[in-house]
């Protein structure tokens, strides 16, 4: 097959080249929180399988989630879940072509962080006050 050698295709520099911005940071965090939730489904599975297995298995899981480390994991899990959820909503807004202006997209990125923190605190306040 007669073919010219392909011209060098344009390459994009990697993360460390760029100055950090809100949108870039929240994009990176969206991917990290997504990966964390992927791993976190193991905890969800352990909880459900223990509940299906019987009181003894469930008491072990209850002991772990009731411990200080368990609380810390659940608190982090809550924030990660809220952050990825709001980040997803932000991406859906963009998918429909809205919020693309510089001020709008920076506002959306900030609200992802602020909103996820507020929701996490709200959820835990309700849960802890209700008992």
């Amino acid at each position: 097959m007669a073919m010219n050698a392909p011209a060098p295709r344009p390459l994009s520099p990697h993360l460390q080249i760029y100055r950090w911005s809100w949108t870039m940071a929240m994009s990176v965090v969206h991917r990290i929180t997504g990966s964390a939730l992927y791993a976190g489904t193991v905890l969800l599975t352990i909880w459900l399988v223990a509940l299906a297995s019987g009181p003894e298995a469930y008491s072990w899981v209850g002991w772990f989630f009731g411990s200080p480390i368990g609380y810390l994991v659940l608190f982090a899990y809550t924030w990660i879940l809220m952050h990825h959820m709001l980040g997803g909503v932000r991406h859906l807004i963009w998918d429909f072509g809205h919020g693309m202006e510089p001020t709008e997209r920076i506002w959306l990125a900030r609200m992802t962080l602020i909103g996820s923190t507020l929701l996490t605190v709200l959820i835990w306040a309700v849960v802890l006050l209700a008992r």
Partner: protein
Amino acid sequence: MVDNRSDTRVSMRTPLARAKGLGAAGHGAGEWWIHRMTAVSNVPLVVAFVIIVAAIAGRPYAEAVRFVSHPIVAIPLVLLIVSIANHMRMGVQIIIEDYVHQKGAKIAALMANTFFAIVIAAACIFSILKISFTAA
């Protein structure tokens, strides 16, 4: 529009894409759409999930079983598992495709990713159904 696919200097297409004539058009859009669709279904299901977990937290075994066995709890939980298992498989597939370039490792990672999502989904759904169908 000018068809410049044969000229790699002005097109982003690789020589392989030109040879096949398809680019990513085979199924890329379908995966993209299911990823967005599950993103949308995740939102109400995750809200339900947070409420369910908050309601169960700290309760004794028998109460927790009775709670999860109720259709109004069990059905959203099953839907949540189906939605997140699909969503996370596609999300991690994108990450693998971005960072793993060695062919063998990439195929192994993509397979492991799919197996993981299926095992998680099967274990969760089986557990929810067992709790629902055997609860007194």
